[in-house]
């Protein structure tokens, strides 16, 4: 009996010793403001922010952006930092890519799992802001606030009738019934394949988002879907009724709520730190290096974003650097020029022979973005990444008729060969020339499929079935074998470290970013429109066909 009592007392002491900390919170509030832009690659920004939208070129100094990698490292660090007591999340003016929010949401949940509260507050809720706010332990809304969850959608426009009226002819040559980017020029509506593609892409993504939000709030996904479909969410009280928000508070009431958690009534006694300041203390680590190589943007031979030869030279440097033991290839690209993409792919292949190269996908790793990374040892993706789009297309416009009818300008051609006028944008392709281009496109497609076959260990038929230009979400891409697993950028880095046999490592990023205050100039891009890159066929001696680029915007 004595022994039993003693052992019970020991057990009780053990239990109480591991009980969660009692008493009010001690430490600082880590304040995350979602209006701070979060981008794949952070920048310090400059002292001034000059915005001149009327100018045809973009002259200015970039405003500061928080880099996703450092944000994730900061949140992970905060979960174990005794000096950080809780997170206060302001979800207004949400501005970040969807996959960035997916990854940040996970670290917020891990912070909460570590026993530290997360409180979210704002005045308006939307798809994106509620997606992340719902991960918080408490969500508050301004009493006069409102919001709606509209679901995902994509609006596309078609120009065939307009071009016909103007007399502009466009020939679309492609391989891939789902390679739909050029359809806007030759059709007045979506093709059945394109519609099916969008529906089968958007619906699972949205359903997954709804499930996540519902699970976080303890409501059923079907109820949440029903409220959204029936427009039952609007003013602040409707959110509280449905249990999607915990309470309505004004800002001063939120201050008092936070003070209460710290056992005080004096706001000045509660210490706070902004995420961007906390990030300054995040160290890259020590020891041998793991490089995070960013392919962020369109791929082209000589552009501002992922410039083929320049980028390939950077990869070659990483290969020759013995201090770098592994590379995480962070891809956020909708694709681009064939030649440029292949140059990069080749360098990645060479790099992969010398050290582990792990791909990590951000918002897009489609078309050329998939081509350059398909050969990586392992591919991490976010659930809501858009990937695949294994297909090729080319667009050849001809304006001869339009010039003649509208502008009364007439053309005549004199050439030394039957096809010297091919691709001159005046008369379009003859049937013979079109057939030749189609053959070239098929060759490029086969090459693309070959790369995927080698990289993913599949047969031609297996790849062809999931290719055809079709875009897949990250979730589906894992099911069909285009990617290996879901995971954040930090997960990919951890995996790379394991493969390289490193328990301690230093993270270094490439290409190196210019420091704040750098004056940039470049052509202004209209980011709202689907972008199709068209290149003259006469320019490319090797690959005489075109831009592999297909991406679209999803409205949040």
């Amino acid at each position: 009996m004595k022994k039993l009592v003693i052992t019970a007392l020991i057990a009780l002491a053990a239990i109480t010793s591991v009980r969660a900390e009692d008493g009010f919170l001690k430490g600082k509030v880590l304040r995350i403001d979602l209006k701070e832009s979060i981008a794949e690659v952070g920048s310090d920004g400059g002292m001034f922010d000059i915005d001149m939208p009327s100018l045809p070129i973009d002259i200015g100094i970039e405003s500061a952006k928080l880099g996703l990698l450092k944000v994730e490292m900061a949140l992970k660090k905060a979960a174990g930092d005794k000096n950080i007591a809780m997170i206060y999340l302001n979800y207004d003016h949400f501005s970040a890519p969807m996959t960035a929010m997916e990854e940040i949401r996970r670290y917020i949940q891990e912070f909460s799992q570590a026993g530290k509260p997360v409180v979210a507050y704002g005045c308006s809720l939307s798809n994106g802001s509620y997606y992340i706010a719902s991960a918080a332990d408490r969500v508050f809304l301004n009493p006069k606030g409102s919001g709606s969850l509209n679901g995902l959608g994509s609006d596309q426009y078609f120009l065939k009738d307009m071009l016909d009226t103007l007399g502009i002819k466009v020939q679309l040559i492609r391989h891939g019934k789902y390679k739909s980017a050029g359809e806007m020029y030759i059709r007045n509506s979506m093709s059945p394949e394109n519609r099916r593609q969008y529906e089968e892409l958007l619906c699972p993504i949205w359903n997954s988002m709804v499930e996540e939000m519902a699970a976080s709030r303890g409501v059923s996904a079907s109820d949440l879907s029903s409220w959204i479909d029936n427009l039952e969410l609007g003013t602040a009280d409707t959110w509280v009724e449905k249990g999607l928000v915990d309470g309505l508070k004004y800002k001063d009431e939120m201050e008092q709520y936070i003070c209460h958690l710290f056992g005080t009534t004096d706001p000045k006694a509660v210490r706070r730190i902004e995420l961007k300041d906390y990030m300054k203390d995040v160290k890259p680590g020590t020891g041998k290096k793991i490089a995070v190589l960013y392919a962020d943007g369109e791929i082209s031979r000589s552009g501002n974003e992922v410039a083929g030869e320049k980028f390939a030279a950077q990869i070659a440097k990483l290969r020759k650097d013995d201090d770098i033991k592994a590379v995480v290839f962070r891809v956020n690209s909708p694709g681009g020029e064939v030649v440029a993409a292949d140059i990069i792919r080749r360098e990645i292949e060479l790099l992969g022979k010398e050290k582990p190269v792990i791909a990590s996908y951000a918002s897009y790793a489609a078309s050329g973005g998939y081509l350059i990374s398909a050969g990586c040892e392992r591919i991490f993706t976010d659930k809501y990444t858009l990937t695949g789009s294994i297909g090729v297309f080319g667009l050849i416009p001809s304006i001869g008729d339009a010039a003649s009818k509208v502008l009364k300008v007439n053309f005549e051609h004199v050439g030394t060969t039957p096809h010297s006028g091919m691709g001159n944008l005046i008369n379009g392709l003859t049937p013979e020339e079109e057939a030749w281009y189609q053959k070239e496109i098929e060759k490029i497609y086969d090459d693309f499929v070959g790369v995927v076959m080698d990289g993913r260990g599949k047969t031609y038929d297996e790849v062809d079935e999931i290719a055809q230009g079709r875009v897949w979400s990250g979730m589906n891409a894992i099911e069909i074998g285009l990617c290996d697993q879901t995971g954040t950028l930090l997960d990919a880095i951890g995996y790379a470290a394991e493969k390289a046999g490193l328990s301690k490592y230093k993270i270094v990023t490439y290409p190196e970013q210019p420091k704040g205050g750098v004056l940039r100039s470049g052509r202004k891009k209209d980011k709202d429109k689907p972008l199709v890159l068209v290149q003259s066929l006469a320019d490319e001696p090797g690959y005489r066909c075109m831009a592999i680029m297909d991406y679209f915007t999803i409205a949040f």
Partner: protein
Amino acid sequence: MKKILLFCAFAALGLGAFAQNTGKDRLTELENMKLEKKDSVKVKAEKEYKSIDFQMLAHLGYGWHLVTAPEFDKGLRRRNGEFFLNAMELDVRPARWISAGLGIDLKWQSYTPSGGNTFSKNASGDVVLAAAPDQLEKLVSTLRCFSMAAPLTLNFHFGPAGVSLGAELVYTPASFVSINDAYSSGQWDYKVRTRGCGGVSPVSWNAFASLNLGMTGIYFRYYPKQPLVPTAPFNLVTVGIVFSSIDL
């Protein structure tokens, strides 16, 4: 006995893990805790500091010259002192207890010799110190300079208090040096200003130290061989008050 102990140990670990609160559980506990007015936890707010800070008007101060040369007034006189105002300053604070600053100050100084002496310009246009003519009564001769200074400071912070040590380089252009005389002669009172006096060394330096509490401090400045007057260099100590906008 061993089996029982092992079982309890594993149970404790398991239950401990089970007892680990999530953020939601913790919030529920906190929301239900009552604030006790008498014993409420007073959390001392630690001021956040910026690791790099750029400011304008970071400090200003006024000091009195304690001149060692017998030609000058001994003791504190209104016209024997300096006023300085910071134009801009860059501070770097790598840790809470130490910071360094580099700035640009605007400085106005005045020097008044004793009644028997006066500043004047010689034939070369340089400032000289000479005996005052007998016919001038109640003579007060003041040399005024406007300078730009670049102080480099090392600050040590101890909570609200602090110690600063530093040195500065001073640039005094001749065009901003003037002699201001006030005297009586006969039945008339005179005020004479002579501008653009040469001979004052355009570049000089000094060292300083200050003891600070909050935003106020007392400073001591040492000008070695102040080359105001080439023919009569003197050492100078200045004591004054400084107000700083940099919160310690």
